[in-house]
Structures are given as structure tokens and as C-alpha cells.
């Protein structure tokens, strides 16, 4: 009987239906199914399937994003249940993400946040126009593993370097990854960032790598 529910969960992620995914997650809780089992047997196979199909070029970016949204909706419902039971889902790492001060460009940053969260990272999205010290404070507050900083302008990109410096000065040891149209690998290296990716899918691989995962 649970299998039927799990299949529906898998399908809700593949079809990218956040409302349905949340409803199915609530159903699992009502039926007193272990939320970890619901997650791992129901929703995760869905996101894995979408990831595979995307890798093959069969599914497109919008499908990947809505699958991520569905996944996020399901986790949001299951999260309190983990807490109640004293268990926890496996989190690959905690990521603080935002677009740097002076820069209002959002879409690339949001895409990376969605992809990271769908891949099992706990993501704290600070939005756009984020001051340097806010990255540092949030990282300290949540004990972040990774700080991801986006910039779309050459004139704001320079502040990515300030974040690296401020983290160092504040003894925050989180790894830094940077991205955005003008950002290059050589820039990332120069400012002492630990990771760089040109797109959202690549960013997940970089974040996993920074966490020491394959």
C-alpha cells in the first residue's frame, strides 16, 4: 500500500508538482510512515530520475527546476516530522547564497539555490544586494559549510573578494564558491575562492566536491 504512495511521490517530483508533493508528504505523516522512508523511497527516486534524464539531454532545465521545487515542498512538510521523531534527513552541507551588494541580478543565483537544495543541501538564500558582512554573519549563525556569491557586473564582482577577506578576518572557515557572467576561473583563483561554476548544474558538482563528495 505504501508502494502506491511512494510511486505517486516519485511521479509528483518527475512532473514537477509542488502542491501534489506536499499533499503526498502530509499523507505519509497521517499514515505514520517514517518520513525518512517517505523521502528516500518516494521523493528521492523522482529527483534522481529527473537528474539522469537531464544528464542525457532528454529533460530540459525547466523540468529540472520544477522537480527541485516539488522536492523542496515535500521536504518542507516532512522537516517538522524529522524533528518530532528526533531523526534527521541526510544533508550534504549547509550553503549560504546571495547576489553581492550593489547587484540586483537574481535568476542565476536562484537557479543555483534551487539546484543545490534539490540535491540535498540545506540552502539559506539571502536574496540580492547582500552586504559583505551579511554573508559572514549568516554563515556564522548557521555554521555554514559553503558560501556561494553571485555577481553579474564587473564592478560588483570585485566585492566577492571582500567577502573572502571578511570571512578570513572573522575566522569563518566556510568554503567560498563564486559565479555570474563576468566571473572566470582565473578570477575565482585570484580572490582565493574555492570553487567556481559557469552554470547551475555545474555548481552542484562543485559544491559536492567542496564537501569531499564524489
Amino acid at each position, binding site marked *: 500500500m505504501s508502494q502506491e504512495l511512494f510511486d505517486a511521490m516519485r511521479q509528483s517530483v518527475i512532473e514537477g508538482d509542488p502542491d501534489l508533493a506536499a499533499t503526498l508528504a502530509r499523507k505519509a505523516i497521517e499514515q505514520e510512515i517514517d518520513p525518512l522512508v517517505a523521502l528516500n523511497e518516494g521523493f528521492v527516486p523522482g529527483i534522481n530520475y529527473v537528474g539522469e534524464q*537531464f544528464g542525457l539531454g532528454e529533460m*530540459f*532545465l525547466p523540468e529540472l527546476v520544477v522537480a527541485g521545487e516539488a522536492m523542496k515542498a515535500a521536504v518542507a512538510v516532512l522537516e517538522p516530522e524529522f524533528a518530532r521523531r528526533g531523526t534527521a534527513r541526510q544533508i550534504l552541507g549547509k550553503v549560504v547564497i546571495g547576489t553581492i551588494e550593489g547587484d*540586483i541580478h537574481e535568476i542565476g543565483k536562484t537557479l543555483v539555490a534551487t539546484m543545490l537544495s534539490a540535491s540535498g543541501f540545506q540552502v539559506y538564500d539571502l536574496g540580492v544586494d547582500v552586504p559583505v558582512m551579511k554573508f559572514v554573519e549568516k554563515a556564522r549563525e548557521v555554521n555554514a559549510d559553503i558560501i556561494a556569491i553571485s555577481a553579474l557586473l564587473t*564592478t*560588483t564582482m570585485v566585492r566577492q573578494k571582500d567577502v573572502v577577506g571578511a570571512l578570513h578576518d572573522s575566522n569563518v572557515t566556510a568554503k567560498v564558491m563564486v559565479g555570474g557572467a563576468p566571473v*572566470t576561473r582565473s578570477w575565482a583563483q585570484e580572490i582565493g575562492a574555492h570553487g567556481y561554476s*559557469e552554470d547551475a548544474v555545474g555548481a552542484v558538482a562543485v559544491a559536492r566536491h567542496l564537501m569531499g563528495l564524489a
Partner: protein
Amino acid sequence: MAGVIRAVENPKLSLNCLSPDEIRQIHQATLEVIETVGVRFPSKRAQEIWAAHGAQVDFTTGIVKAPAHLIEAALRQAPPVYTLAARNPQQDLPLDGKHVWVGTDGCGVEIIDLYSGERRRSRLQDVEEIARVADALEAVAFHWVALSAQDKPAHTRGLHELAAVWRNSTKHVQTESIYNAREARAAVEMATVVAGSREALRRRPVLSLMQCTAPPLAHDGGSLDAALIGAEAGLPVGFMTMSACLTTGPATLAGNLVVGNAEVISATALIQLAFPGAPVFYAAAQTASDPRSGAYTGGGPEDFLFGAAGGLLADFYNIPISMGAFATGAKQPDWQAGLENTFSTLMASIVVCDMLLGVGFLHGSRIWSYEQMLMDCEIYEIVRRVLAGIEVNRETLALDVIRAVGPGGNFLTHKHTRAHMRELFVPQYLDRRPYNVWEEKRDGPRDWARARARKLVETHCPNPLDPAVARELERIIASEEAEKATHEA
């Protein structure tokens, strides 16, 4: 010949990719979006202008909802025709709906070094050298700031770039890298020095400003403030949308046109409300994001159609347009670059987009390549000749010549041949040599383009700025830098 600029002029070919009724549908949908969904204007000054003219302004979110009649009445104030002035008046560019002028592209962050062939970060010297080469090329009519002067401080970088272009070229400068009020004021001051006076600048704007919108349906506050300052001084200003199907715009082409159009005409209307009759232009570089990665493509059929559609929309609003073309996503000057840049240039030129941006970039306007720059100029020359069409008259029908040569003869020695042979296209960067010559040398267009670029960098001497003017430009930049230092102290 130095100083000559070649333009597409009154093309003989034409294109109807949107009917007048379809244009009206896009326009109506756009007005509905502006009135009911709104566009974000995160600038206090812009919000106050909108409010003073009766638009509904949410001062918390910055979202402005303006009624259709307000937008339409404002747009009617915009001059349909005006001239971009150059340091050398013979290089002035009339934006009259009859010419297509090509600029250098901008603003990238890396360059394939002309000598080492290595990719490296851009610096001020690159801005100087590209301007110098562009000054020498007949295909290039005006400049964008091609590369970011990343060896200069961020807050005065745009000013250093402007001065560098003026030092190295007599052609018109359109900057896309001045996007805050402080820098815009300094840029106006610099342009005033180059033009001679405030009044002279108004009469002969040697500088124009291009601002990017922030799709979907939003603007950047600094860009709005900079545009208002430019327009107040009489500089032509334009807003460019780069809304892309799938990510910052709907997946459908018409929907993406509506989103981009709403951004462009709302900002253009704002300028007209503030300064009725100020010279403005439409600007667009729309594309489709790659479905598999979301990446900017800078090519493909959607991109090419947008190139034509933007021109038709600007015609509908009766204002000039600056259109993104030559925006290949290719990583090297290769077949993809040739294909994409040819199509985008052809489509935008047939509908007579007044300004085309621009030659020289790879990887979606990020990496400068001199080889690509020169080959782009050749693409433009081919397009220019195609659009000129076929001239049919007594002389060109050549009946007398055909009669004289008759069956089995040849036309090589006839006077008529010599009179007209120089009208035929002679390529600089197409390989028409015998196979064995190629086989021996194994070189090609990229090598020839690189050699020509090196020669121009090393030998072209642009008509210099008056030393007093050059010193004054430096003084303005230095005073901006000093002011910043004072603020920080």
C-alpha cells in the same frame, strides 16, 4: 580610405516577419502588462516622475503601473530622427531609418591576447587598442566600450574607459558601462569637455548612453538615474532588454517580445515624461536560453527573429534602435561564429536597425577576439552588398557588351568589365586560393585577420585629442577618485 564609414543604406531586400496587426497585438499586450502587472523602477527620482504624471506607484516595491494613454502620449514626444555626433563631424551618424551603423560589442571581461594567443583578463590598454583598430575600420561606425578596464578602480572604471576610447578614435562613443548617477554626472562633464560646451554637447552629442534593463519587467536603479542625467544633458539614451525565452521571459517568442517591449517602452516613456523630446532609442538583444542548460545562446533561429522583430517594433514607435547582433556563443572564431553572426546581422539589417552591436566577441559577448572582430566586419560587408540588391538599367543590362562579345567569346578584356569589376566583392577573409597553395601554407582567414589586427594596433595613428581636452578628462577622473577617497577616509 581613413575616416570613411560604410553603412547599409536603403536596402533593396525587405522582410515581413510580423504583420502590422501582429505588431499591434504585441503593443496592446505590452500596454496591458505595464498597466496591470507593472514594471519595477527602483529609483526615487523615477518613481517621483511617474507619480507626478499620474501613474500608480508603489513606493515600497518600486513597481509602477502606468495607463496606456500615458505611455502612448509620452512615446509620441520622442524624436524619430537625430544624429549621433563624432569628434570628426564627417563621421556623424544620422539615425534616420535609412542607415545601419555597426559598433564594437561590449562589455566583456577577457581577451584572446593578440600576440600570445592566450586568454587573459581585460585591462585599460585593451580598451585603447580596440578603439584604435575600430577607428581604422570602415565597417565600424561607432564604439561601445569593448572590454572592462579591470586594472582600474571599479568606481571610476567607466570614466577611464570613455577617456581611453576618445583618446584613440574620432568616432561616436556609446557607452554601456556608466550605470550610476555619480559616474553619469562625470561622464556628462567629460562629454561636455570633448564637445566644447553644454550647448555644443546638446547640439552635437559625442556620447550616447545605453542602459540594460533587468528582465523580467524591472530596471536597475543606478541605470535609471544615469539615463535621466544623460537625457537632461541632451545625450541620446536607450534601454536594452536582453530578456531570454525560458528564463527571464516566456518560452514563446511573442511572449518574450512583450516582456522585453514592456521594459524598453516603459523606460523610454519615463525619459520623455521627464524631458519631452529628448533623443531616445530602443535597444534589444533578446535570445532564447538553451533548454538543456539555461545558458545564454546568442544565436539560433529565435535570436535571429528577435533581431528583425525589434527593428519592426522600434519602427512602430518611430524611434531609432540599437540591436544586438554578432553575439555568437562560439568559443573560437569558427563555423558557429560565422553562421550565427551572419544570420543575426542579416536579419537586423534587412529591417534597418539603426545601430548594430557589435563586432568582436566570442562566448556570448564575454571574450574579445581581434580575429573575430575583423571577420565580423567582413560578414557585415557581405550583408551590406547583399542588401544593396541588383541594379537593373541600360548600363547594367550590358546589352551592347553582350552583343560585342557574342557566343563563345569572353568578357575579360571589354572596357565595360573594367569599368564595373571593382563593384564586385573582393574578400579579405575567405579562402579562394587553389588547393595546393592552401596545402603548402596551411593558413587561413584567422591568420590573415590576426596579422591585419596586429598591423593596425602597431601602425594606425588616430587623430589625437587636443592635449588640453585630454588633460581635462584626466582631471575629471582624478577628482572623482579623490572624492571617493575623501568619502572613505
